[in-house]
């Protein structure tokens, strides 16, 4: 398969996935009990039947669900009109916050990216480093210990690890139990309160790092073992390079390739981690928002958040595929 065909296939897969997500989102919203007008304006708003009918027409809820076969324009249906709204970034109004969903999501996105970014950065550095050493010193106590660590990190529920670190960190180290900054600093631009922000970030970041590290370590370990058995490593040794030079220059570069795809493929998993950890640490990001929307049964917010998260993960996956073909000369050539 040529590179163009490969990318085209990945792109169409991403497109189909987005379509599936959009359809799921649309259908779920429609099968909720009660009048759809209620679903748009909120359950507890008092309106007369006339207003309700007017709204029904205004929101296009009198139109067919998927295909408008009676009119000249087949696409003049609830589904395609909603799709058009979503494409313009209009995700409806949050019931609980009485603000446009897109605005609410936009305000939290940065906080989540900060947390996930920090956690990923640390876990990649530590995981790759530890995996490299574990693979190099295979079957030593260090290797076995690293394997046990990743096994246990896998078996621990994310949120429970968060609760334990929260309890330990706040009791013994006096770290804050939640939030993104102290109450006195709420509302100030984050870069002006960096020391306070950092103190709040320590525990959630640590939880995320422990969580992701095990997996990166395992992948790096098997990747490095594979690379070390290659002939060019033997050649490099024979040419007189030191072990460190071989590891650094020859082995690491090639072993890093799988990590690139794993990072992006893991993004769905990363998103799950963010939902749990932000809930445990009351960290003011998308994950916490998702959980709040869930408990308050705020459907427009829930669905908007789902749409945003799913869309980001799908796009990141596609980008990783493209990046991989650029990085790996073998894929590039074939």
């Amino acid at each position, binding site marked *: 398969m040529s590179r163009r065909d490969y990318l085209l296939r990945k792109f169409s*897969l*991403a497109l*189909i*996935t987005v379509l*599936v*997500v959009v359809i*799921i*989102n649309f259908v*779920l919203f429609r*099968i*909720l*009990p009660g009048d759809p007008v209620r679903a748009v304006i909120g359950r507890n708003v008092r309106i007369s039947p006339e207003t309700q009918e007017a709204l029904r027409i205004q929101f296009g809820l009198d139109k067919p669900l998927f295909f408008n076969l009676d009119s000249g324009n087949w696409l003049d249906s609830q589904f395609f009109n909603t799709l058009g709204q979503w494409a313009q970034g209009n995700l409806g109004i949050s019931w609980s916050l009485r603000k446009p969903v897109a605005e609410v999501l936009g305000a939290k996105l940065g906080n989540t990216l900060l947390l996930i970014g920090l956690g990923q950065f640390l876990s990649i550095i530590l995981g790759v480093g530890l995996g490299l050493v574990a693979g190099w010193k295979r079957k030593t106590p260090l290797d076995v210990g690293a*394997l046990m660590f*990743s*096994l*246990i990190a*896998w*078996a*621990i*529920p*994310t*949120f*429970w690890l968060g*609760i*334990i670190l*929260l*309890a330990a960190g*706040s*009791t013994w180290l006096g770290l804050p*139990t939640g939030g993104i900054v102290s109450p006195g600093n709420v509302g100030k631009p984050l870069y002006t309160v960096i020391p306070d922000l950092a103190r709040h970030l320590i525990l959630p970041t640590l939880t995320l790092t422990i969580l992701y590290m095990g*997996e990166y370590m*395992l992948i790096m*370990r*098997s990747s490095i*073992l*594979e690379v070390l058995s290659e002939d060019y490593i033997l050649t490099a040794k024979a040419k007189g390079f030191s072990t460190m030079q071989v590891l650094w220059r020859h082995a690491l570069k090639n072993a890093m390739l799988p990590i690139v795809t794993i990072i992006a493929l893991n*993004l*769905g*998993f990363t*998103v*799950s981690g963010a*939902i*749990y950890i932000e*809930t*445990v640490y009351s960290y003011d990001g998308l994950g916490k928002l*998702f*959980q709040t929307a*869930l*408990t308050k*049964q705020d*459907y427009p917010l*829930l*669905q908007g*958040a*789902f749409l945003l*998260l*799913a869309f980001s*993960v*799908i796009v990141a*996956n596609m980008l990783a595929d493209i990046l991989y073909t650029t990085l790996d000369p073998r894929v590039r050539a074939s």
Partner: protein
Amino acid sequence: MQQGWILFKRNAADFWRVFSRNRLGIAGAFLVVSAVTVAIIAPLLTPYTPQEIIRDAAGRGMTFAPPTAHGPLGTDDGGRDVWTQLVYGARISLTVGFLAGFIAMFIGSLLGIIAGYFGGATDTLLMRITDVLLVIPDLPLMLVLVATLRQMDLKISPLLVLIMVIGLLYWTSTARLIRSQVLSIKERQFVYRARAIGAGHWHIISRHILPQIMPLIVANTVLILSTAILIESGLAFLGLGDPTQPSWGTMLNFAFDRNAVTNGAWWFYLPPGLAIVWVTLGCVLLGNVLEEMLNPRLSAHHLEGEQKILAGKGGS
């Protein structure tokens, strides 16, 4: 693989002899079997019921009583016995996890066999579906699904909703694994011979292919169980469990919401989490060892075994 299956099916003694020498396998089996035993005999392990309020000598409910005041694990915020909730919680957590895991395993195996055996357009379609499902972030999807289903007033128990949603979403990795096995098995001589003498699809699948992939299905099921139990605990922690039938995840949801952490009530939030780790670790150890034993393919290049540990980790 056939060798492994014969060991497994006809010669339980031989299987046990090999298995009992594997320390990790024994440890895993112990963890799983002990948890299942506790779940079954729960009422025998405690004099209380999960909802019963423990009272002190003066008749007041004992809230957040430490293990030193009320053994063995103290009480929760409402004065209920934590140990009792823990052993009864095992029933809920294990039932939901096992049922969801079995559903996922059944769908995955069925679709994997169909895709691998029939090939062609069926295969392409089924594999595209798994591709799509693998990319959609699983936890947000499950949360939206569960929230909607519960809102719909279907008169079904919240636990059943959890079982269905987990079971219907976690079959993709099993389907891919089974498919790749079926693809290689259907090219073997004995399948060609069976077809040559006029055997139908059903006969070939049930008599020739299924026995070959059964060991893999068994090992994979144990691994899927650990994922299902983790996911259940996560969804329950986020408040989607059944408050009247608390699982370990629901207990943690209560503990967290009712400030067990700030009250220093470690006996309330540590045991349920340890119980979850107990079972999931047991399943992962057991699953990996079974896979290694029953699938000679893996013993040929042991590097694969390590990656398997992570296969199928979902939203927890």
